[in-house]
């Protein structure tokens, strides 16, 4: 009798376990944006009577806390895929949000963090739109379809999706930047480091088999090729944007496999933290995550100015959706240690002067708008199967940079190839 009850309970438990595991990664949300930014301090002079009416209560949507708008201000919401202080991708967006809060007048910002991609994201974005937010930035690739659906339902809300490829010509915009520019420079740096250390092996932690990850990996390897023609690059796929432990294990796996420098396509400072003595990591996304000496550099985003411009335009009614893809000259990205006012990390400063000169010169022409993503992906390029990808002097086109024919893109030379110095097979897309 009792054994039978136990058996039933165990089945129930197994079922619950499956559900928990399926929901893993998206079931936690912390209270967002409780603190008022210091910039708003002068507002205290306003009559106190207005205060209670000014703020509506935040509400609960599933396990997510949906923040409230502030009446009379231009309300901007951000949807984050990770925690706001993840030390990478999401933190870079949050730094941009704080920049907006400090530099754009009469604006109120709020965020919802650790929002799972897919159905959860749609609920959260719709709730934000219903709440009355004027602009919503959705900051992960997997929010693309959810953003599109909600943008259709709420034509008065401007939704800007980061890193995807869908948009409309009204209130749904797609925004991203050519991080391949910075990855290319980081590749030069990493190649020079590996060559100087006498160990011509590098590693790349890739997230998902999507065009962006192959493009950034290829840009890195093309940069490596400039300073270290003999270097090879190994790849580990981790199938997650934000899992610090898996990312650290992947970094350890690459280092143990012989890599001298490991670069990441995911969101945390793991490669530098996992680097054994005498080896190096390159972090991503956030300028503040390259602190320890084992970190060579960080390719980072500087979203603040771009966000501010879009919000101003949206308030003026001049912003229209569509597709926006900026290069390094937009000032929205950087290579840590090489931008104005930054000091080079020790691992970079000790490199041969001619390599550093090459990096600085290329960076200068990128910032001047003379060297773009189409120069990064300019022939001759050969893939690691020996096929010619691009003839001498021919550049990839925009569709090629961000398309797989398998995903229905009309690209001609699609991004489904690995540069010749990458010692890994292409991931299957089935």
């Amino acid at each position, binding site marked *: 009798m009792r054994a039978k009850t136990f058996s039933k309970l165990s089945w129930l438990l197994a079922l619950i376990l499956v559900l928990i595991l399926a929901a893993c990664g998206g079931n936690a949300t912390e209270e967002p944006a409780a603190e008022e930014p210091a910039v708003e301090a002068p507002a205290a002079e306003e009559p106190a009577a207005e205060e209670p009416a000014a703020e509506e209560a935040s509400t609960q949507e599933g396990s997510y806390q949906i923040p409230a708008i502030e009446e009379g201000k231009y309300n901007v919401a951000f949807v984050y895929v990770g925690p706001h202080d993840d030390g990478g991708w999401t933190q870079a967006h949050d730094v941009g949000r704080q920049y907006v809060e400090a530099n754009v007048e009469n604006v109120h910002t709020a965020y919802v963090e650790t929002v799972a991609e897919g159905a959860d994201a749609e609920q959260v974005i719709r709730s934000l739109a219903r709440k009355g937010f004027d602009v919503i930035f959705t900051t992960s690739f997997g929010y693309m379809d959810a953003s599109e659906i909600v943008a259709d339902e709420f034509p008065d809300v401007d939704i800007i999706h980061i890193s995807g490829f869908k948009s409309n010509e009204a209130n749904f915009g797609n925004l991203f930047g050519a991080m391949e520019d910075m990855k290319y420079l980081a590749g030069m740096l990493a190649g020079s480091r590996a060559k100087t250390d006498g160990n011509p092996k590098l590693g790349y932690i890739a997230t998902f088999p999507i065009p962006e990850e192959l493009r950034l990996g290829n840009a890195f390897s093309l940069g490596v090729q400039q300073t270290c023609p003999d270097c090879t690059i190994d790849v580990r796929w981790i199938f997650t944007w934000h899992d610090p432990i898996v990312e650290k294990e992947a970094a350890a796996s690459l280092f143990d496999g012989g890599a001298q420098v490991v670069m990441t396509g995911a969101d945390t400072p793991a490669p530098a933290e996992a680097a054994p003595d005498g080896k190096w990591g390159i972090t991503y996304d956030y300028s503040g995550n390259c602190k320890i000496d084992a970190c060579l550099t960080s390719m980072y985003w500087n979203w603040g100015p771009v966000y501010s411009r879009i919000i101003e335009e949206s308030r003026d009614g001049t912003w229209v959706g569509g597709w926006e893809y900026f290069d390094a000259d937009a000032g929205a990205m950087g290579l840590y240690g090489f931008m104005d006012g930054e000091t080079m990390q020790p691992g970079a400063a000790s490199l041969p002067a001619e390599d550093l000169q090459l990096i600085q010169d290329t960076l200068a022409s990128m910032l001047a708008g003379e060297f773009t993503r189409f120069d990064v992906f300019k022939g001759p390029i050969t893939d690691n199967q020996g096929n010619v990808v691009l003839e001498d002097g021919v550049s990839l086109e925009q569709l090629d940079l961000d398309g797989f024919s398998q995903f229905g893109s009309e690209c001609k030379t699609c991004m489904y190839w690995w540069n010749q110095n990458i010692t890994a*097979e292409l991931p299957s897309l089935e």
Partner: protein
Amino acid sequence: MNPIIILHAGLATGTILLFAAIGEVFAERAGILNLGVEGMMLMGAMAGFSTSLSTGSPMLGLLVAILAGGILSLAHGLVTIHFQADQVVSGLSLTFLGTGLALVLGQGLTGQNPPLVPSFDIPGLALIPFIGPVFFANHSLLVYVGYLFAPLTWYYIYKTRPGMHLRAVGEKPEAADTMGLNVYALRYFYVFVGGCLAGLAGATISLSVSPGWFSELTTSGQGWIAVGLVIFAQWDPLRAAFGGYLFGALRRTILDLQGPATLFGLTNPLYINPNFSFFLQMAPFILTIAALVWGSRAAIRERLGAPAALGVPYIRGERGL
């Protein structure tokens, strides 16, 4: 694909499962199923990390982690031993309670760098070929503790008088009561021990194996694996330790398998198509579910040697099994 490196990494990550699973062995041997391991581990990970950060002492961090897991487990003890409520439901609630508490109390800990539990070589033993670099070189103190802890708990459970009392309480509590043992007190104590070890397992992650606080990703389901492991291990601490090391090595092998183009002269399927690693990553969880389902059948449980009174509240004066 260097076996030394994979085994070395497996021993480190396996130590997490070792502590958590042996803790659960204690609780289940006393007759109390505690499914809150994941929650207690997260609390331990958070408390240990936070303490080391504020006091600068990782050892104090471990102590606080042990206490945090232990104190949380007393909630389960109160509900299941004192109020004789359903152990499955209470354990699941404990997971949610522990996870929620740890996330709230752990705010702001991400990205911090507290002092960690030291790693070192064992002099002499580290020089033995193969064995040395795998078992005795550059491991955390906690890994070495794990080597000693598993056999000691085995000896305790099977060869000492208190160990026999523990088993009696889990097998036939009314007989143990007749013998003069305090069944309630012993059950509380071993639930507490299990919680302490789960807390230690959590701190093993945050202060040693994968240092840092990454909210619920810190444990990422390892508490559940520990629960399943106990059934695999047939409630035997030595087998639990072995299983822990095995799962630890598997975790690392999955990533390393993406490297080489060929394995044993054959094309490496993970090199051609890294998507396959999904299936390997699922393996521990599938095995856990399978173990829980398989291990729940009465006949099999008897054959496996499950404590007869596991999951059954003891009420003095009521007829036993």
